[in-house]
């Protein structure tokens, strides 16, 4: 039964005016109960995280671990606060976000259409498959020196790195998505007189979207990984630079804060993509 139907049923059930008061009391009790349950669920899900943070805070303070190498969690946050107040934090986060997002979006704009064409035209697929196989098995980080040699240590080499690392998950998943489209759906659309371009827009693309999205999620993870590494090697800004520079200058709390920053950006990226995916693919049967 859908939520809407349950709601309607509830409305019907509550319709009789006789014992409204008792019902209201019941509703309050139910609300309190559900709040407690909700807190319980949050507690259960976050239990390990809370334990981890507590351990992080207390272990250095109790002398179980050297404070210089692992400062307590609160000191890391304090260092982050200082970074935020000096405005330095925004510069680094801004630089990293700009590189990651532009590389990620450029890669989507280039490689999703290329993947669709490669999946659709068998000839193009045969032509490209060997190159794709070689390129995707060449770890992007191994190519970092090459990009720096050819493109310098400026923005261009970093964005190119991100584009390169996003390319393969996007391309492979898009090709697979187009090839996996149920031939029966294509047949059905053809018997209804769909032209090749209608077939493409109204069948191939929507049918491929879920698998293309798998590629997009993989690409976003890959983008962050490669970005941080390339910022560590040659950059004057960005979270990767912040982390490595803090380590060199022995500003250890600041280094940990940089790492947390990357985690938060990664989680945010993923949450945005998940929300978008849910919105675009409401038609899918819930998994499981």
């Amino acid at each position, binding site marked *: 039964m859908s939520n809407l139907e349950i709601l309607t049923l509830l409305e019907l059930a509550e319709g009789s005016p006789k014992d409204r008061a008792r019902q209201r009391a019941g509703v309050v009790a139910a609300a309190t109960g559900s709040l407690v349950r909700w807190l319980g669920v949050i507690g259960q899900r976050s239990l390990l995280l809370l334990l981890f943070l507590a351990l992080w805070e207390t272990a250095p303070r109790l002398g179980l671990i050297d404070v210089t190498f692992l400062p307590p969690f609160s000191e890391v946050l304090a260092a982050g606060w200082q970074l935020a107040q000096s405005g330095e934090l925004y510069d680094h986060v801004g630089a990293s976000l700009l590189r990651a997002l532009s590389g990620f979006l450029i890669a989507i704009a280039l490689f999703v259409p290329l993947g669709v064409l490669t999946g659709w035209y068998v000839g193009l697929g045969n032509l490209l498959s060997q190159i794709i196989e070689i390129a995707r098995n060449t770890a992007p980080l191994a190519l970092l020196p090459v990009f720096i040699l050819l493109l310098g240590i400026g923005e261009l080499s970093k964005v190119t790195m991100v584009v390169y690392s996003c390319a393969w998950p996007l391309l492979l998943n898009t090709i697979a998505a187009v090839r996996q489209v149920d031939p029966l759906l294509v*047949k059905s659309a053809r018997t209804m007189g769909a032209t090749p371009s209608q077939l493409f827009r109204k069948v191939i693309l929507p*049918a491929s979207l879920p698998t293309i999205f798998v590629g997009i999620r993989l690409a976003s993870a890959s983008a962050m990984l490669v970005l941080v590494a390339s910022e560590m090697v040659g950059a004057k800004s960005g979270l990767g630079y912040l982390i490595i520079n803090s380590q060199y200058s022995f500003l250890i709390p600041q280094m940990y804060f940089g790492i947390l920053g990357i985690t938060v950006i990664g989680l945010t990226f993923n949450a945005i993509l998940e929300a978008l995916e849910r919105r675009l693919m409401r038609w899918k049967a819930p998994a499981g």
Partner: protein
Amino acid sequence: MTTAKIRFEHVRKDFLVRSKDGGPAQRFTALDDITLDVRTGEFLALVGPSGCGKSTLLDLLGGLTTPSSGRILLDGKVIEGPARDRGIVFQQYALFPWRTAAQNIEFGLDIAGLKARERRARALHYLDLVGLSGFADRYPHELSGGMKQRVAIARSLAYDPEVLLMDEPFAALDAQTRETLQGELLRIWRRTGKTILFITHSIDEAVVLGQRVAVMTSRPGRIKQVIDIPDELHSETEDVRSLPGFGHVRHEVWSLLRDEVLKAQGFPAAASDGERLAKAKELAHV
């Protein structure tokens, strides 16, 4: 002379099959010398053993492939490629999972270039015709098998084709749903007056639905015989399966099919009659 809506004239379809050991490709004849008329407004059931080329026949009619020789005429014109004058209903529904029931019905109208408002109105009309008025905004995964097939039938009817081609549409449904939908289909057929070519492997279904039943041979597929079904077996009020005439016609079709089923299963010709009969009964799900 009655007018033929669909006319098969000596239709033959060959496929080239590559042999396993990499030798030269061999010719495999799926359909041979099919000659058959489907009259305007007629409900013709086509029954045959599995592998008799029923689906090839449908692909030819749908315009998805072309005959190796002979020709297929619709209203006297040779079929050239797929078009909306023929609606096809597939066994596996073939609904677009990202479209709601109503949007699925709108698909053909969308292809035809109808405006959104008219599309929607027609979709709702045909949803109503198949008894799914309240389900316009449900996605296929929210519908049962029977409901999906109703949507698929509505989708094929919505663009008002000349003929409806149905490829074992009820084979994947449970027995009760199947009988209900058979009744519904007859009702829709009477109401819309469409010409229907209905492919099935079930003798019962062929006899219950068809005004005529064409029995096919296996490998290569030929039309063995066309049987007229008496009108009394298409009563809207009676349980036709319990009429004595039903058993009689059913047996006639079954006898025609028996040898074909055996041949399709590669049963040795040397076996005794008793064995052959037992095997045939088993295979024909009697």
